[in-house]
């Protein structure tokens, strides 16, 4: 099996705050890894390190054989990594001045020099895939939150990523729209996309994840198959976290 992500002994500080402590994590191709943990535990920071949106202070990080150096070193590798890694944000971060179609076409045309017709065909195919083929010429503000997030997923997929990062993709959505976004993610997972997902959707984690990782105060304290982590957590902090989030 190919390892897409290899992280060893990674440490990250925000000033004096030690936000990630000796993180070791490998992700295999085709694997869906779900990271859970309380807010402020460092789970978002961890996946933001994977595509260099955050720098780390020590340790090693390799994405698809491109080694990223601490403190923002190795910009060449970073550029390669970002071409191969898609990211979906909590706040969607669609480009409000561009139509949905142009949102998706931008990166393939700018980064891969794709011809306009090709990029356009890709955009339409992906929009159909996420179920909003008829919204291509609207602006993001004209769509619902769930639709916007699906556009964001399509936008990331347009770069044909080898790995997708999801940073709490449903946390900013109204409850009735969470399902449509999770459905798209579930489909992606089924098709074999490698994914690292930070989420509070425990049902999704249990159903879709190959592996669940629990982070507490910047440390991976528990890791395993969803059934093991959810039904038989070994660490008492995992137990208390799960009892809090699963109680309702």
């Amino acid at each position: 099996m190919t390892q897409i992500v290899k992280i060893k002994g990674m440490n990250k500080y925000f000033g004096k705050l030690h936000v990630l402590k000796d993180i070791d994590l490998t992700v295999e191709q085709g694997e869906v890894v779900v990271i859970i943990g309380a807010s402020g535990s460092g789970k978002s920071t961890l996946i933001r390190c994977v595509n260099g949106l955050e720098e780390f202070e020590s340790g090693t990080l390799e994405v698809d054989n491109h080694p990223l150096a601490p403190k923002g070193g190795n910009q060449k590798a970073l550029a390669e990594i970002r071409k191969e890694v898609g990211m979906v944000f909590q706040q969607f971060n669609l480009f409000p001045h561009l139509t949905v179609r142009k949102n998706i076409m931008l990166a393939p045309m700018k980064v891969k020099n794709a011809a306009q017709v090709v990029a356009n065909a890709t955009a339409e195919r992906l929009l159909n895939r996420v179920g909003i083929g008829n919204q291509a010429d609207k602006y993001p503000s004209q769509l619902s939150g769930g639709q916007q997030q699906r556009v964001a997923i399509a936008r990331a997929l347009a770069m044909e990523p080898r790995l997708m990062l999801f940073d709490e993709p449903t946390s900013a959505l109204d409850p009735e729209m969470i399902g449509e976004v999770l459905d798209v993610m579930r489909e992606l997972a089924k098709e074999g996309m490698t994914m690292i997902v930070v989420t509070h959707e425990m049902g999704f984690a249990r159903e879709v994840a190959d592996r669940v990782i629990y982070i507490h105060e910047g440390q991976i304290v528990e890791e395993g198959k969803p059934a093991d982590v959810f039904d038989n957590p070994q660490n008492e902090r995992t137990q208390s976290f799960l009892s809090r989030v699963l109680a309702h």
Partner: protein
Amino acid sequence: MEFQFQFDWQAAIDSIPYLAKGIPYTLLISFGGLLIGFVLGIIFGLLSINKKWFLRWPATAYIEVFRGTPILVQVLFIFYGLPDLIGGPIDPLTAGIAAIALNSGAYISEVVRGGVQSIDKGQTEAGLSLGLSRSQTFWSIIWPQAFRRMIPPLGNQGIVSIKDTSLFSVIGVGELVRQGQVYIANTFTAFEVYFVVAIMYLAITLSLSLILRLLERRGLASV
């Protein structure tokens, strides 16, 4: 004795052709200056938010100096002072355009800085995460959004600069106020002439407001 003043409509109307000769100068100085000022504003505005201190500091110094000193002093300095330095005269028109350019450039730098900084950090992150370079992210994602937000304050600056050109009568540019002063010296109809001068400024600034409002409405419809 009863004091009576009558607005002399005929005098006002008679002054129009002479005063109108000043309009091209007023327009040339303000719009020529503003155009250069806009370029300066983009350059220094972006430099002022650069991470590198040796780019940021000179830009900040420029902004503070030209925002912090009166434009009248600036134009007098350029017109009367600079010739000593460069060893030759500067024509009043050039001095006027330069003063508007440098002065509006400083204010527009701040407009540019504010516009760019007002765009959510998530936009940059989305661009970078898609593989776009920093400059691609800036010019295709951040700048178009920032520019739309800059239109109202840019309009403000345009109006201020148009009115600032009236000060340049002191260096003898034949702009609106200067034309008025010369005309009044012969006819002693100060009230009527300055009234017409004011109307002419108003016509120019209102046209600009109108154009900007249309531009803004078209641009903002999509955001």
